């Protein structure tokens, strides 16, 4: 086993730089604020994708319920923003001023207890990270300690996504129901709806994204990452070697949950509302699709997948309002059939070797490409 002495090998460094140039220079300079805000929305799914690369690509744990964590992060942020937007002055028209509008419509007269902590911004930030992690810990402990895995785990996560959606829709006095939490205005007194704010939020998000990429890369390169790969390939052998497989799985699942939650919180800030339509089964599966298209073995692939699929979604639906879903479906089928390792697989198999040859690298044997590090073949 070759352990890289460097944090990023050459091709990964190239990928990192290419992404940095694109996100920090090319896109902000070439797009108007409306399109840039759309890119920011796409990128929130990249956070989920990075988590899925860790837990699905490396750890072999397919979660079809990442929308749950995306939603929990998003709702935590939305609750804070909604409380701020529901000042007495803003809600004079209600029968009980000072509480969120949907609570008023549902005859609530005071803010429920579990909303109260979200008056404070630091607590909100902590909640965005800890609530999903804790939730993932419970699910993970309940499943992995009992050695539930594979398809069964995927189905259970999917069920949890469905349950949470029903819960949110049903408890509309406390959650805003199917409309979600809408009409969010300011973050700590700073109006998030202006073009200027959208511009700044975009950069905040990109920086956070690179932070998550580095964190995921770090996890991948440690012994922990190696055990995850080993676990995916031969779970029993790892168990017989004395490792607690369940704990490693729980960790990977929790890490993926936290990444997804950061994405969800950013989504709320970028889009300006949160609703149960990001929590359920369909968005959860879409998130898996972004990762599959990008390449589930590649952290950068996940980012590209989220960007490109969502871009295709927007542009196809603008050009062909009635037919775009078919086009998108065909794209997924084509990618999965022809390139099981997704876009990053195409890159590693077709493009990377040529670049290597072009660069006439003498040490070509040490350039394993974007995928090879964790690929099953290794």
């Amino acid at each position, binding site marked *: 086993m070759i352990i890289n002495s460097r944090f990023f090998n050459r091709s990964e460094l190239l990928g990192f730089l290419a992404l940095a140039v694109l996100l920090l220079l090319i896109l902000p300079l070439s797009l108007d604020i409306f399109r840039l805000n759309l890119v920011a929305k796409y990128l929130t799914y990249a956070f989920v994708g990075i988590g899925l690369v860790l837990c699905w690509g490396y750890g072999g744990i397919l979660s079809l319920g990442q929308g749950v964590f995306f939603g929990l992060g998003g709702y935590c942020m939305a609750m804070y923003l909604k409380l701020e937007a529901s000042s007495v002055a803003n809600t004079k028209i209600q029968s009980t001023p000072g509480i969120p509008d949907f609570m008023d419509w549902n005859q609530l007269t005071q803010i429920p207890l579990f909303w109260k902590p979200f008056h404070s911004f630091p607590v909100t930030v902590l909640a965005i990270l800890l609530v999903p992690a804790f939730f993932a810990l419970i699910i993970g402990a309940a499943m992995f300690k009992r050695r539930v895995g594979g398809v069964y785990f995927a189905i259970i996560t999917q069920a949890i996504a469905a349950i949470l959606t029903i819960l949110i829709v049903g408890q509309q006095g406390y959650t805003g129901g*199917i409309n979600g939490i809408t009409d969010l205005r300011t973050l700590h007194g700073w109006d998030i709806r202006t073009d200027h704010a959208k511009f700044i939020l975009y950069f905040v998000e990109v920086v956070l994204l690179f932070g998550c990429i580095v964190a995921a890369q770090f996890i991948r390169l440690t012994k922990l990452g190696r055990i995850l790969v080993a676990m995916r390939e031969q779970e029993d052998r790892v168990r017989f070697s004395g490792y607690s497989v369940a704990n490693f799985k729980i960790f990977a699942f929790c890490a993926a949950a936290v990444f997804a939650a950061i994405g969800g919180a950013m989504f709320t800030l970028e889009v300006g509302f949160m609703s149960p339509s990001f929590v359920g089964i369909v968005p959860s599966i879409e998130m898996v699709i972004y990762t599959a298209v990008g390449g589930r073995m590649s952290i950068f692939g996940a980012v590209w997948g989220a960007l490109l699929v969502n871009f295709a979604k927007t542009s196809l639906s603008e050009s062909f309002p009635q037919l775009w879903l078919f086009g998108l479906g065909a794209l997924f089928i084509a990618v999965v059939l022809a390139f099981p390792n997704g876009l990053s697989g195409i890159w590693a198999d077709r493009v990377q070797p040529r670049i290597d040859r072009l660069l006439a690298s003498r040490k070509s044997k040490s350039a394993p490409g974007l995928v090879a590090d964790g690929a099953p073949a290794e």
Partner: protein
Amino acid sequence: MSDETKPGLKSPLRRKLLMGMAALPAVSMLGRPAFADVPATSAVNTTGLAVTDSEVTVGILHSVTGTMAISETGSVEAEKLAIEQINAAGGVLGRKIKFIQEDGASDWPTFAEKAKKLLVNDKCAAVMGCWTSASRKAVLPVFEQYNGMLYYPTFYEGLEQSKNVIYTGQEATQQIIAGLDWVNKTKGAKSFYLLGSDYIWPRTSNKIARKHIEGHLQGCKVVGEEYFPLGSTQFNSVINKIKLTKPDVIYAIIVGGSNVAFYKQLKAAGIDLSKQTLLTISVTEDEIDGIGGENIAGAYACMKYFQSLDNANNKAFVPAFKKMWGEKTVIGDVTQAAYLGPWLWKLTVEKAGSFDIDKIAAASPGVEFKGAPEGYVRIHENHHLWSKTRVGRAKADGQYELIYETADLVEPDPFPKGYQ
């Protein structure tokens, strides 16, 4: 857009042209042909909307894919018909309407994204769109922030009023109170069982219904109230409860596909709608298409429009709609309300003499549309419509037969005192 304003000041020739154009309305008063009566773009569009000398762009924003497509398609069709008719009649302030259609995909954030695109990118002078409350809630901050104008067609729960929205459907009190009064008076109904899909519109509507039944109708009571998740198909337990409590009226606000299961199960359970009074505010001709007329025949619906309405406007509207979209299409309440959108916008623009959003918002109250298929309507100060409320009875052929209509227009009251 401001083709002649910017370079016009620099070039003397263009300046002359501009002065000439400004004088055109005066010339037309002297008996020139009507087509010369086109006010200068710079005068009617001071905020940079997509208005040229010959064209004005509006947006259509509905779901044409996803679960809501089946409901929203009718609205899209009605809006396109209205735009075509307006263009055939000379357009708006001499400008033909061009539309850009976007798909909300039954997904609320997509609605917000597309609304932003229509306003920021395309500079649409108005947008006809949205259907569910959730989609409207998602786009409302966008319309308020970028100062757009939305014509929203669906009957809805009220509790909202915006400078940037004209609500062409009925708000809850318009639809509910007249219907309850009617059923109480003519059927002598005393006990009501309230049903609904579990989201804001049915819940708010049932809340208003309960307040009215318990507070305003003598000796009436609610014997049950229940909600079902959207898309639910299991109604057997509630049907059993209905059989036990024997309410005079089943008051049903079940939406979408759930209706199919609900009415079929009612029929299968032996509840005969020709004997048991059922009043719904959520089943239009569009839904009956899916439920099957034979399953719902005998039920009463309370809304403002039925395809079978017998008036001159409607007799022109229904054939025009069928000619454009096919003999088999049906026209429900919301489809008709969507048809009002482009017309009300045209009338408002012409009243204001400007495409500017602020001027339209200010000019809207009092705008009358005499050609509405439902009959005369007028915009209220609160941007909702004065309209009549009607009760119809479903027939096996999928149409409603008009049973009752209010004598006068009912005032819209989105924030009803005593009902909150």
